[in-house]
């Protein structure tokens, strides 16, 4: 109950923020611009639109994670609005989970809105919607954003909004290259290689959620991939939020 109330409040906070509206509008505009690039891609304009459209969902979702999510808790501490919440019978871990859930709900709304925009553009360009591949791409992007939102909440609970935004971006970049990092590790002596492997294991495995190329080809990943990605996202976010809860438990509000 308390988690739902906190999630609702966070959802309102994100949805009523002008950043969200601006991001969605800009995302839709960018998708429309792909139409201008179609003469350059020699008949591959459908592939380009799907690829860029799904990239926009991740990219603009990340923009919201960084601009809103990374300051979600820090802003409450700075503005002292947190006093009104934590002086009530609200356990601190529940507070963090509520924040994360609210942010995730807003991110899903953004992903679905951009996805709907992409479908509309596809219908307009090619008279085909590619419903299943696009939906699978949007679902995976939503899972990816959930993982990144958990990291943003962790950093936001521990540091200032600016640092938290920097850490979130750093983890997003490093997480996107986690496969390459593993390949890179194989070129080093065993001790260093296993250290790099551990680091790569700690980073979020974001390539797992990247099905953009498949979707551009009009394909969807097998059901097992969806199940595994969903489980991974929930487990990873659970671990990150547990860490955040442990650290936040001792935080003081002067």
């Amino acid at each position, binding site marked *: *109950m*308390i988690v739902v*109330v*906190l999630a*609702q*409040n966070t959802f*309102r*906070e994100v949805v*009523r*923020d002008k950043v969200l509206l601006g991001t969605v509008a800009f995302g839709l505009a960018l998708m429309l611009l792909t139409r201008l690039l179609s003469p350059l891609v020699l008949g591959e304009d459908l592939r380009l639109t799907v690829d860029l459209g799904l990239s926009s969902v991740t990219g603009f979702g990340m923009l919201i994670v960084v601009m809103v999510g990374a300051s979600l808790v820090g802003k409450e501490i700075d*503005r*002292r*609005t947190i*006093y*009104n*919440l*934590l*002086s*009530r*019978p*609200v*356990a601190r871990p529940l507070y963090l989970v509520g924040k994360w859930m609210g942010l995730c709900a807003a991110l899903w709304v953004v992903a679905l809105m951009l996805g709907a925009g992409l479908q509309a553009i596809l219908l307009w360009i090619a008279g085909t919607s590619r419903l299943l591949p696009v939906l699978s791409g949007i679902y995976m992007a939503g899972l990816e954003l959930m993982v990144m939102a958990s990291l943003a909440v962790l950093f936001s609970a521990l540091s200032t909004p600016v640092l938290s935004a920097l850490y979130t971006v750093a983890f997003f970049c490093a997480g996107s290259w986690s496969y390459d990092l593993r390949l890179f590790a194989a070129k080093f002596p065993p001790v260093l290689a296993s250290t790099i492997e551990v680091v790569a294991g700690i980073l979020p495995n974001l390539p797992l959620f990247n099905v953009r190329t498949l979707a551009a080809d009009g394909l969807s990943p097998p059901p097992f991939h969806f199940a595994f990605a969903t489980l991974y996202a929930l487990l990873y976010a659970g671990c990150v939020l547990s860490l955040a809860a442990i650290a936040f438990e*001792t935080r*003081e*509000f*002067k």
Partner: protein
Amino acid sequence: MTRSLSGGAPRPDPGRPRVQNATGDPDAAIRARGLSKVYRSQWTLKRTVALADLDLEVRRGEVFGCLGPNGAGKTTTFKILTGLLRATRGAAWIMGVPIGDVASRRPLGFLPEQPYFYDYLTGHEYLAMVGQLSGLQRHDADTRARRWFERVGLGHRPRLMLRKYSKGMLQRLGLAAALLHDPEVVILDEPMSGLDPFGRRDVRELIQEQRASGVTVLFSSHILPDAEMLCDRAALLFGGRVQRVITLGELQKQGIQHVEIRLEGAPILEVPPPWSGRVEREAHGAETVLRVEGADLAQDVLRWVMERGARVLAVEPQRGSLEGLFIAAARQVDASGRDGEDSQRRSA
């Protein structure tokens, strides 16, 4: 039933860094024993003592004031009691539940000093939300939010976003948020701050209403006449310690402490040596004010000034006041501080 502020209660183990889980006195609404808070600078490691072995007991149903200058430890005490800060040492209970337990905040309503709110919500949305967080069902929270919104005088602008509220309106909203779930204990940090005289009167009425319905109120204020009007008891805090606890009822029962004699006509440049220390003289233009200790001496002083041809303008008996006690306590703390410094210098 003994409800003294010190002694009698088991002291917590000073070695434990966190507030311990022990049974509090069920008769006390709020109880603190040996509460200490020490801050350590991250860079210089310098220690700052915000609270030093603070003992406090607030009885059920009473209005208790925490009075003290800035930095005395009032807000720190409130933040520890509400779980926003952790005590370095000591223990505290709210309605018998240790403050480390989230359940201790169930019967609690809290108004922080200069409350801050979410800009993106309306006042009604905010109240409904905090009502649910305090354990009310959605429908109940919504109904109470509407009622309290009216009660604190904000009902005329239900759809106004909080970013457009004035300071006084926010303070009223904070009070409504602290009270809407019918808490048994209310902690108000500077509830009169930022309010105009009408607002202050409303807050006084709210506190009196709470007392009448058996709610325990602990509040801090810099406005001593307000505290004097509202409190059953008050603690004077200086340097993170309770210097003195005053029962306001007793203060009112006390006899005449001083008599102020205002006169003009003949200049009184000095008082006779036998009265020195018992009669203070102040000159205000053509007027002289003599502050005389006790009513008996006032008779002799009056006779003496009239013999000297002075015209008596007014004779005002002065009873003990909270302000007088506050200033006396502050002077005592100052003097003991100076004594401490002197003895340190001597031993050095």
